[in-house]
């Protein structure tokens, strides 16, 4: 049964190996230069404020490496998706569609074993592919990732690896995504029985999950750090006044590097979000200083919620565990459904 699974999967395995090989060559060839640039950027000399060194380095690497950095983020998003669509969805749907399941299920192998070996073997290939690619890219991008960690959150140079955009493309999380996408594809195929619709459903559900998890689940996997501090208007990163003056937005400065900033709110002493109205000092032709003084007289506070850089690995492991658990659940659903399937 292992041989049969392998024989049917061979073309896809060859494709995956080719992609991995190509990526390995590209990354291995360019990595030494990137490391040289990093070593000569002066990170050894800076101890407290490395932000400038980091932004100089990120400028120095030039657009080709910058493009590679971004391209490989895209690749890491695509790999689990493609695994789900092209390995998962057709795996059993194509058998049901072409009727070959009537051949396969009448050999001397129980359907449970047939399904379990297919899921297990190709699932492992999916996990290995995503894992190897993540390992290579995480290794290649480590100079850029560590420079990004010095950058300001939500600024152009501030995509630390805990930031959702990068988080999904580093560490062990892609293993979980690949396993889940694969199991999702197979399940869609088993339930829908048609390859193309199963592919479309896989894409839709996986994209939805990949949108919902970083926005609504991951921030709460570990309760975020919440900091309250008096707001200093002279220090604010944003101060906006609406045209009639009855609406005002003040955003305090938050400059801790390498964190995933979840929210940065300004609240009144009673705990309400501050939305104005702007006082006379902030309207008309009055000076900025007068406006700042008026804002400070309100005793506003800044409420910041974030995940610190040190939580990268705990969040990675928790999320990977969740996705692997979902994948296992879908796998069991497939086995159960195929055991019960008639014709």
């Amino acid at each position, binding site marked *: *049964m*292992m*041989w*049969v699974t392998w*024989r*049917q999967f061979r073309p896809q395995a060859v494709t995956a190996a080719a992609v991995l090989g190509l990526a390995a060559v590209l990354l291995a060839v360019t990595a030494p230069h990137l490391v040289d640039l990093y070593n000569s950027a002066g990170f050894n000399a800076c101890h407290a404020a490395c932000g400038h060194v980091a932004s100089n380095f990120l400028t120095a690497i030039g657009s080709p490496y910058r493009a590679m950095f971004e391209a490989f983020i895209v690749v890491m998003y695509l790999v689990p998706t493609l695994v789900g669509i092209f390995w998962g969805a057709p795996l059993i749907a194509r058998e049901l569609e*072409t*009727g*070959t*399941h*009537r*051949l*396969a*299920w*009448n*050999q*001397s*192998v*129980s359907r449970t*074993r047939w399904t379990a070996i297919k899921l297990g073997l190709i699932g492992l290939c999916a996990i290995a592919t995503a894992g190897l690619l993540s390992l290579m890219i995480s290794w290649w991008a480590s100079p850029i990732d560590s420079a990004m960690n010095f950058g300001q959150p939500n600024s152009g140079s501030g995509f630390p690896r805990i930031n959702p955009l990068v988080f999904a493309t580093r560490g062990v999380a892609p293993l979980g995504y690949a396993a889940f996408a694969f199991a999702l594809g197979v399940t869609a195929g088993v339930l829908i029985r048609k390859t193309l619709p199963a592919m479309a459903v896989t894409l839709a559900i996986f994209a939805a999950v990949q949108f919902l998890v970083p926005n609504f689940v991951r921030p709460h996997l570990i309760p975020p750090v919440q900091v309250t501090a008096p707001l200093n208007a002279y220090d604010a990163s944003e101060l906006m006044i609406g045209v009639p003056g009855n609406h005002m937005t003040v955003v305090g400065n938050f400059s801790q590097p390498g964190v995933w900033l979840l929210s940065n709110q300004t609240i009144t002493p009673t705990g309400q979000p501050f939305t104005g109205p702007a006082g006379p000092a902030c309207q008309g032709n009055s000076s900025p200083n007068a406006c700042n003084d008026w804002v400070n007289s309100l005793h506003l506070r800044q409420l910041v919620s974030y995940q610190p850089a040190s939580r990268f690995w705990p969040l990675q492991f928790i999320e990977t565990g969740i996705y692997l658990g979902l994948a296992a659940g879908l796998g069991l659903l497939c086995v159960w459904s195929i055991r019960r399937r*008639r*014709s």
Partner: protein
Amino acid sequence: MTAAIEASGLGKKYGRHWALSDCTLSIPVGRVVGLVGPNGAGKTTLLNLATGMLAPSSGTIRVLGGAPGSGPGQLAKVGYVAQDAPIYAGLSVADHLRLGAHMNPGWDMALAAGRIRQLGLALKQKAGTLSGGQRAQLALTLAIAKRPELLILDEPIASLDPLARREFLQVLMETTAESEVSVVMSSHLVADLERISEYLVVLVDSRVQLAGQVDELLASHQLLTGARRDPATLPASQRVISASHTDRQSTILVRSDEPVLDPSWSVDQIDLEDLVLAYMGQARTSRPDVSDEFGTKILEEKR
């Protein structure tokens, strides 16, 4: 001795439509059994129930004493060539043999390779490029080489040209001659089954109309021709299966275990095809409850 297929009150319903109903059968082992009936009569349903590809809606079915498709042991005992002979289009002939070897503990590679050689199939050829006949032969080879006790073939030759049909049946007959395997083969044409079947099951409109050994069936039916006469006047021991009349003459097919001695009849033997057609015609024209009663009686008469 365990029956090859033993069904009792077996039925399969799709929505509100019964694809097979009230099927009671006992097909003995060691025979070549023909399952004949028009398209849509329920042949495939019956065979899918026998392989465990379908679950019955009512009644029970045992195959070689076991529940169909219940596990590797049961699967190993039954070789199945499903309708349209499914094969993997992207795999080569040799790959199919390896697949068979890896998925069946009882696989006979010498037998499989020998058959493929005899058929003149190229091992490297992709199965998707085989002709219909070659495809059916490959599927049959897979089913035979797992060394089953029962071979179930669902319309294996329906789509083949006459030469490929003959070759397929040739291979099948060689196989049954060489081994103890029982065969159940379905077709909508009696002619396909006539040459190889020792036992015949006629399925019409989701019901079994006739089942029995071919020679016994032929011996117990007579075609009576004579002056026009009402079939109702025949003795009770002669059951009328079909009757046709011209102005002066009646032709009546009767089932009777005793010889017809009435000198006013000219008595002829009927051939298998005409016999089956008579039962099919009878099922079509009679009301379902009548044919049901009749079918049940036929089954009760059987050993």
